[in-house]
């Protein structure tokens, strides 16, 4: 038996399946067939790390486009040229600014458009020789942070080392001492504040007394000036007269010494030592006389007739009473 196939039914089924498949692909790709887009170029200074093709472009927090391509500026390799496609209803004009932002600290980058709200601002148009209009860009604070992060880390390491040196055991003891002293100082200040008013009052009193004393001193100086003015001349005249007399006296002494130089020299060389020795002898003599006078006062008979004592006899080798 020959199998009879319905070609119409099979063909219909296949076409329906393919149409469904296309619709599913369109749905899956979220292709907005009705949307209109404008393309722009953005030049970023430095790295755009984390930014990829198809990365999202946000405006007011809404995804309004995507990155179409990323490349280096052929005229300046330090700049990165980013081609973006933005929905046509998004206001993009000369005041619009593009920033590179990051999704937290995950490193996923996206572009945010600011400004452009002023409808009077001129619309962006491609400059001569350029395919697309250029949106101005600003560096991202977070990007700047990440760019400067290595330097900050180095500085932090240096700072940590310095802090470790600063806070060694010895310095910690010193710091503890400083804190203790500061605490004591503040305590003393707090206590002293109570006496501050008394001290201020005393200082005021002292200043008042000082002012009175200054006035009296001024008066005294004025009086002294008057007295000195009157008596100084007489005093100076008497002083000068005294000095003249002293000078004359010295001249006379000088002349007398010069005239008797030989005698004076002989006196100094010979008589002075003799006098010195005589003084010593006189001192001994005076002491002996003093001793004698003491003996006379105590027992005059002993001085005249001697002391009765037992003398030592060499022959008998014993003491013998003296017979008077």
């Amino acid at each position, binding site marked *: 038996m020959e199998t009879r196939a319905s070609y119409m039914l099979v063909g219909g089924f296949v076409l329906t399946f393919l149409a469904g498949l296309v619709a599913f692909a369109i749905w899956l790709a979220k292709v907005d067939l009705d949307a209109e887009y404008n393309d722009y170029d953005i030049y970023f200074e430095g790295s755009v790390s984390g930014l990829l093709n198809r990365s999202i472009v946000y405006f007011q927090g809404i995804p309004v486009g995507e990155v179409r391509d990323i490349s280096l500026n052929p005229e300046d390799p330090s700049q990165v040229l980013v081609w973006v496609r933005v929905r046509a209803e998004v206001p993009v004009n000369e005041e619009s600014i593009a920033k590179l932002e990051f999704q937290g600290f995950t490193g996923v980058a996206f572009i945010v458009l600011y400004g452009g709200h002023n409808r009077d601002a001129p619309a962006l148009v491609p400059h001569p020789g350029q395919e697309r209009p250029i949106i101005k860009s600003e560096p991202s604070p977070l990007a700047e942070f990440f760019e400067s992060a290595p330097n900050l880390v180095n500085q932090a390491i240096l700072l940590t080392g310095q802090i470790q040196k600063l806070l060694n055991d010895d310095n910690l003891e010193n710091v503890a001492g400083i804190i203790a002293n500061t605490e004591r100082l503040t305590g003393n200040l707090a206590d002293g504040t109570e006496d501050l008013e008394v001290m201020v009052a005393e200082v005021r009193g002292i200043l008042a007394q000082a002012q009175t004393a200054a006035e009296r001193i001024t008066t005294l100086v004025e009086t002294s000036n008057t007295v000195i003015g009157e008596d100084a001349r007489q005093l100076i005249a008497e002083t000068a007269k005294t000095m003249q007399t002293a000078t004359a006296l010295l001249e006379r002494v000088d002349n007398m010494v010069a005239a008797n130089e030989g005698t004076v020299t002989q006196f100094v060389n*010979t*008589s002075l*030592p003799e006098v010195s020795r*005589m003084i010593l002898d006189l001192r001994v003599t005076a002491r002996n006389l003093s001793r004698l006078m003491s003996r006379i006062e105590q027992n005059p008979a002993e001085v005249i*007739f001697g002391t009765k004592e*037992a*003398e*030592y006899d*060499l022959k008998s080798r014993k*003491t013998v009473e003296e017979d008077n």
Partner: protein
Amino acid sequence: MSDFSVKKTFNMVSKAVAVSSLMLVAGCGPLISFGDDGPADQIFSLDYPVAGDHSSAASVIYVAEPLMSGGLSGTQVSVVLDDNQRTSLMGVRWNANTTDMVRDYLVRGLSAQSGALMLGEGALDVKAGCRLGVKVWDYEYVPGNSISDDRVDVEIELILVRYIDNALLGQPTFAASEAVSGSDGVDVVDGFNRAMASISRDAGDWIGQNREACQL
């Protein structure tokens, strides 16, 4: 009153004065000793050394009068008994005060030994470079238990002072102890002579070492 009466009264007063004087002298008899018939004291002197001729010496030293320790000054010979008893030697005396004797002995002895010109009492007005003070601590006879133990002790401290700045150059003490070989005054004096010679010799050497500081 007639002349006869005046003469009679004068004669009576004269006799009364004469009799009173005789009675006064007789009353003082027990107080005044006129000596007795006992033996006379032996009087000795030191045997002074011969001084050298140093009249042109550059170092001149004046020897001051010695200061004698208690009881050593005088003409009696001091004796030290047991228990620190002190007395004098019976029948023996020096012919001069011990102060003068020690000074004269040192002047001559030190001059002979040191090479410096030593000045004594007679050269008071001669310019000197130094003064030598003398302090005599011991100058006595010390009897022992037997004759062989008897000795003479002499100890003298010298103080050498430079006149120009009154600087003390030294203050040594020299001592000598010599045995007494008999029981007569001559033996005792011989001990003193030997002791003084020993001290003079040692002190002369010391003065000789310091005499340059006493140059004029």
